[in-house]
């Protein structure tokens, strides 16, 4: 009797597992991991908004066809609270319980680095919208990102300065105590010289939180007589550097990276930052019809204009779903291969991945005009 019971029990279990393995007809799960609470909750909210919108649009457009069955996507959003360990357990849950076809997330590089190995081991593609640390995608071949990495901005600005502003000499002043500034500076120098330009002065300082006087470096730069000034630093020190440069009579155009992207730049720098240009991920003032349609739809849905977080999350989800639709399979390796070869055209530019699964795509150039950020152009790599 007991044996019969045991056999029945085992059979039920096997049957149960069998049912569980078979995806519910017509619906698959997509996971998202974002900080919905904690210090960076606003980033999480914007990101979730972006993904929600992408999923809705995907389903409204008919979803994907998997083995002849029309399949829509159900989005499951998890909160990582900004902590790597919480993000890791959320990833376990999404992969083992919800059987997601892919994961969008996370915002912060440290969280992405914690969920990356889990997704990689399970063979589930993961795409982070905004983690910029180079190491994030080096975890394995299932890990992608939707934003360009920091050093890329140096290349963008070098192209812009050389090709659009038509300058052939440039000077760089950067913080040598921070990887962000250093990466941008090195890449600007390398790219600018590759194009045929000359970096006539390459000056550093240590710790922009402490330094206020840049006149010694600027004197050296001025003596080298550059036609362009590259300042890949954060807005506070950029404002000071430009003020002191103008005070010393160094009146050449200046540029930088997304560290400039703050209203405080103009508040502190005043007239000195006027005309400055910087590269960033996305501008809601980009007149491209695609961007404007997105901005309108997003604003109508959430009552606020989209920021870079929302736009990049929208792109990340769109890209993954597009790959899912193209390959017509729920197998992780198929979706991964489709993502690798994607030519997805998103809000923040057309996507193409390099061998490290970092996107090669356009950056937006913003110019300070009359103390306001105004969209200037998009620069392709």
């Amino acid at each position, binding site marked *: 009797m007991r044996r019969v019971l045991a056999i029945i029990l085992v059979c039920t279990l096997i049957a149960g597992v069998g049912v569980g393995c078979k995806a519910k007809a017509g619906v698959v799960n997509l996971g998202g991991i974002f900080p919905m609470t904690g210090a960076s909750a606003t980033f999480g909210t914007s990101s979730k908004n972006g993904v929600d919108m992408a999923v809705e649009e995907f389903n409204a457009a008919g979803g994907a066809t998997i083995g002849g069955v029309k399949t829509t996507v159900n989005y499951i959003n998890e909160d990582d609270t900004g902590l790597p360990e919480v993000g890791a357990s959320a990833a376990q849950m999404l992969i083992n319980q919800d059987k997601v076809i892919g994961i969008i997330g996370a915002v912060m590089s440290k969280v992405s680095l914690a969920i990356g190995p889990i997704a990689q081991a399970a063979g589930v593609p993961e795409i982070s919208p905004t983690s910029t640390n180079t190491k994030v995608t080096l975890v394995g071949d299932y890990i992608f990102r939707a934003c360009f990495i920091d050093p890329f901005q140096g290349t963008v600005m070098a192209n812009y300065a050389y090709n659009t502003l038509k300058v052939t000499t440039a000077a760089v002043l950067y913080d*040598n105590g921070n990887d962000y500034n250093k990466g941008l500076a090195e890449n600007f120098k390398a790219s600018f010289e590759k194009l045929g330009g000359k970096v006539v002065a390459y*000056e*550093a*300082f*240590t710790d922009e*939180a*402490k*330094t*206020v*006087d840049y*006149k*010694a*470096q600027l*004197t*050296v730069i001025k*003596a080298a007589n550059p036609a362009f000034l590259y300042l890949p630093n954060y807005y*506070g020190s950029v*404002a*000071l550097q430009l*003020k002191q440069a103008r*005070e*010393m*009579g160094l009146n050449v155009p200046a540029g930088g990276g997304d560290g400039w992207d703050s209203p*405080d730049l103009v*508040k*502190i720098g*005043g007239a000195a930052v006027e005309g400055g240009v910087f590269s960033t991920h996305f501008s809601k003032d980009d007149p491209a019809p695609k961007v404007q349609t997105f901005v309108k739809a997003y604003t109508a849905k959430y009552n606020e204009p989209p920021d870079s977080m929302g736009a990049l999350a929208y792109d990340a989800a769109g890209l993954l779903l597009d790959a899912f639709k193209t390959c017509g399979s729920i197998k992780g390796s198929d979706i991964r291969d489709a993502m690798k070869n994607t030519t997805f055209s998103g809000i923040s530019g057309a996507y193409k991945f390099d061998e490290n699964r970092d996107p090669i795509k356009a950056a937006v150039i913003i110019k300070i005009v009359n103390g306001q950020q105004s969209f200037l152009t998009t620069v392709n790599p």
Partner: protein
Amino acid sequence: MGQFLQQLINGIQIGSIYALIALGYTMVYGIVRLINFAHADIFMFGAYMGFFLAPVMAKIFGGAFIPTIIAAMLITGLLGFIMEKLAYRPLRYKSRLSALITALGVSIFLENFCAMPFVFGPTYRAFPSMIVARNITIPGNLGLVISNVLLLDVGVSVSLMVLLFWFVNKTLMGKQMRAVSFDKPTASLMGINIDVVISTAFIVGPALAGAGGILYGTTYGMLASPFLGIWPGMKAFIAAVLGGIGNIPGAVLGAYVMGISEAFATSVNSNLGYGIAFVILIAILLIRPSGLLGKFVPEKV
């Protein structure tokens, strides 16, 4: 040659601000043998006073700079007076270490108290511009540029220093200060009121730091956070030691040496800039352990 002179000018400008802070360190040390670590935060306090007072003063007086710097000096002087009364006086005859630790405590308190959102707040502040910056290009082919802000920095600090020398060397209070600095018990036996003398030192030193704060704000146009005093304060403290702590002309000389060597070292190699400046300091202190103008006093055993 042009660049050499320009760097010299840059160094003199930074040195002027360091000098105003260094004077406070050296005065207090000379009289009570205490390194007042909170001095750097008084400098910060002065800068923030400028931030809040300048718009008000501009409304009342039309021109803002002179009334603002005077008001800031009065307020930081008062702050120094209160600080001495509350924090240092009760410990005057305790071990010197207790006073030193207290100074650190006062410093940390001032920084963090001021960083609270309802006090000064921890974010960037644009300093109101009281002087319209103008460049003066020096005729000749060297391409030297001097701004009126630089002239103002140097002018204000040199005149305050001259005023201080006059005060210390020519007035009765100055004479009393020198006496207390020389020998406290004897000075007290001669009928000098030590409390008054010490309080005066704690008013004059911080007032100079307050003026330094206003110059800092005017020169750089930005107050990063209430922790902004730490770095210039550290440099000024080293300048005071370099010049011979306790010696007033020494502090000024040390500050200019510090500013100028920093500018030159940075121009030679900006990656090593500050490092080279500190190597110069170490070298000078190895040769003259009591500082450039300090007197070497052999300890009798």
